[in-house]
């Protein structure tokens, strides 16, 4: 059992948990993830690691309420326990001295990009971050990301805050601008990662994306998370989650993410009716 040391509601449907997991905290690196299981009947889901504190023995995860598991998770409070918390899994993001690195975060992936941006900057890169959300209410950690970046650009789809538009627009401007961009890290919803990759492709700038297919064990055992990269089948859990965005078969990823849409709906409706929570 893993204790929730702190719960923070970042925006109405996005939450942060700081979880006591000293051994995971000791080994965590940027870009890695954990697999959690809430309770005895729960499924195993992957969540990226947003932060860790070896001294405190804690690992921070940030998640958005989407299906049954994340809604159940959102009901837990500081002091409650998560049954299983397994990690750190996956290969860490490749951190090196690249020059200028653009870190693009869509939605709640700002939490995932934070440790990567921090590590990239610590390595001596110039870090330009772009964060985007649908609207002002869904934005969080603007100041936090600004602190670990040399420059920060914020966008909202509806223009309710900062620049109106999608993250791909300032990304394209940076690529067309005077400054050289050596590497792009794009993390967020799959569709956003796909379009960031499409944006950078004509410029030939290596673009790393963090794929989020459905997983079960997260250790290479089941092959549920298989993705096609450069024509080869890879397991995102052990070969990734980071891959070259220009090589990813995005349509396959989208299709495989939809495998359980019917079951996810069924599970969620059952949970809603049982728990008396109707939205």
């Amino acid at each position, binding site marked *: 059992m893993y204790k929730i040391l702190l719960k923070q509601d970042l925006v109405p449907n996005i939450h942060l948990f700081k979880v006591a997991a000293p051994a995971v905290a000791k080994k965590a690196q940027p870009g890695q993830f954990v697999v959690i299981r809430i309770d005895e*009947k729960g499924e195993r889901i992957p969540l990226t690691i947003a932060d860790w504190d070896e001294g405190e023995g804690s690992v921070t995860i940030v998640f958005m309420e989407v299906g049954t598991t994340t809604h159940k998770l959102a009901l837990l409070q500081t002091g409650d326990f998560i049954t299983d918390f397994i990690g750190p899994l996956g290969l860490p993001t490749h951190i090196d001295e690249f020059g200028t690195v653009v870190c693009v975060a869509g939605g709640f992936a700002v939490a995932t990009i934070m440790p990567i941006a921090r590590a990239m900057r610590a390595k001596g890169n110039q870090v330009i971050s772009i964060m985007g959300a649908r609207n002002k209410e869904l934005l969080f950690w603007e100041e936090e990301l600004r602190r670990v970046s040399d420059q920060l650009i914020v966008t909202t789809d509806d223009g309710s805050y900062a620049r109106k538009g999608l993250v791909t627009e300032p990304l394209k401007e940076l690529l067309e601008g005077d400054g050289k961009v050596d590497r792009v890290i794009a993390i967020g919803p799959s569709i956003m990662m796909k379009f960031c990759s499409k944006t950078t492709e004509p410029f030939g700038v290596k673009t790393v994306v963090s794929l989020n297919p459905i997983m*079960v064990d997260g250790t290479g055992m089941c092959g549920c998370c298989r993705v096609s990269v450069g024509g080869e089948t890879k397991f995102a859990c*052990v070969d990734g989650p980071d891959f070259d965005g220009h090589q990813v078969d995005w349509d396959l990823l989208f299709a495989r993410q939809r495998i359980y849409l019917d079951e996810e709906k*069924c599970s969620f409706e059952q949970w809603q009716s049982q728990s008396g929570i109707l939205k």
Partner: protein
Amino acid sequence: MPKLNLNREPMPRQDPKIRSKNFNEVALGYSAEQAQAEANRCIQCPKRSCTEGCPVEVDIPGFINAIREGDMPEAVKLLKDKNSLPGICGRVCPQETQCEATCSLAKKDAPIAIGRLERFVADWERANMQSASSLPAQPAPSGKQVAVVGSGPAGLTAAADLVKLGHSVTIFEALHVAGGVLMYGIPEFRLPKDIVQAEVDYVASLGVKVELDSVIGKLVTLDELLNNDYHAVFLGTGAGLPMFLNIPGENLNGIYSANEFLTRVNLMKAYRFPEYDTPVKVGRKVAVIGGGNVAMDSARCALRLGADEVYIVYRRSEVELPARREEVENAQEEGIEFKLLTNPKRMLGNEQNWVVGMECYEMELGEPDDSGRRRPIVKEGSEFIIDVDVVIVALGTTPNPLIASTTDGLETTRWGTVVADEETGKTVKSQVWAGGDIVTGAATVISAMGAGKRAAASIDEYLRG
């Protein structure tokens, strides 16, 4: 000399029509009368050839004699002296190629049903004895620490033997429950999970610490275990990496590795979805590719989930099926259709990326290959299509490279297995032993247990050296 009784006591089983719709255990187990009758058939020959056929050298004539004499606690004691997992072995060991094959009555085609008697003794103990009452005397502590990586049959056996010898043992398990393939792979109807849990609990009650959720190679490396508190490490991480066919269309939705399908169904209990949160696709027409026990398990799970038609698609003929005869018969009785001498060429999908068909070749058998079995050869121009909406690929597994790739100085083969001495399990790396599927590639529960046992003896010798 009394007349030989050549009538093996049959195993009572659930009716195929009923059992194909539920996940309850198929084989129901002997009654006390049946066990007594079967035990009475044993001639207690002085050769003890049955024990020679057992990879863990159980005193088989001894425990059978105790059943005959009605001394069940003695039967339990004799059985568990060598085998810490009798409820599991009694159910899933291939006795027909081991102890029962070497039984003196095997020549008369009527070997003693040793596996069924073993199961009877284990089930009797669980129902009638406090677990503490069967615990062996506490050994004198050796002061040595051993880490066992993986809690499948090899790891559990090694851990139990080592703790009984006085060593302090910790098992590290990557998943959220202990048992390895016994929990995620073998289905409930063949090996109930409460029986696995009871035997894991027994090993823990001997004093073995079990650390779940611990992915060695990620959370802690093997070298870190050795640098910290452990004097020796046993690797029993099995063969957990699924093999695919590498044919076009294999990533279509609806195509599972057997590992994923069985993990969802057994470990995550998807057969009880949505009570349990993990779903699994229930196909109408399900094709399982492969002919081993895992293929039979997958097919029988798919049937129980509610599929209309389930096929075993196998490239050789019936005699080459690697599955246990008993499991093939169980599958046939339940209505699994065998499409033999058939091999997939490619998977066909619809616009939503769902599998809808499988194009297959007809095969014929040629000369024997390296495995001694006749080589399957494609009949050119024989392609035909089988309609399917779920495909389960059960072609076998290879070891997960996670530990070998994060450890200095372990030798591996080109199949990813770890090189270890056959007799002792000793690897080329100092203080590290390995056994079970990680060394042999996918094999049986009992051979993994035998390897765990031999490695434990070698580790003990080293620690006392």
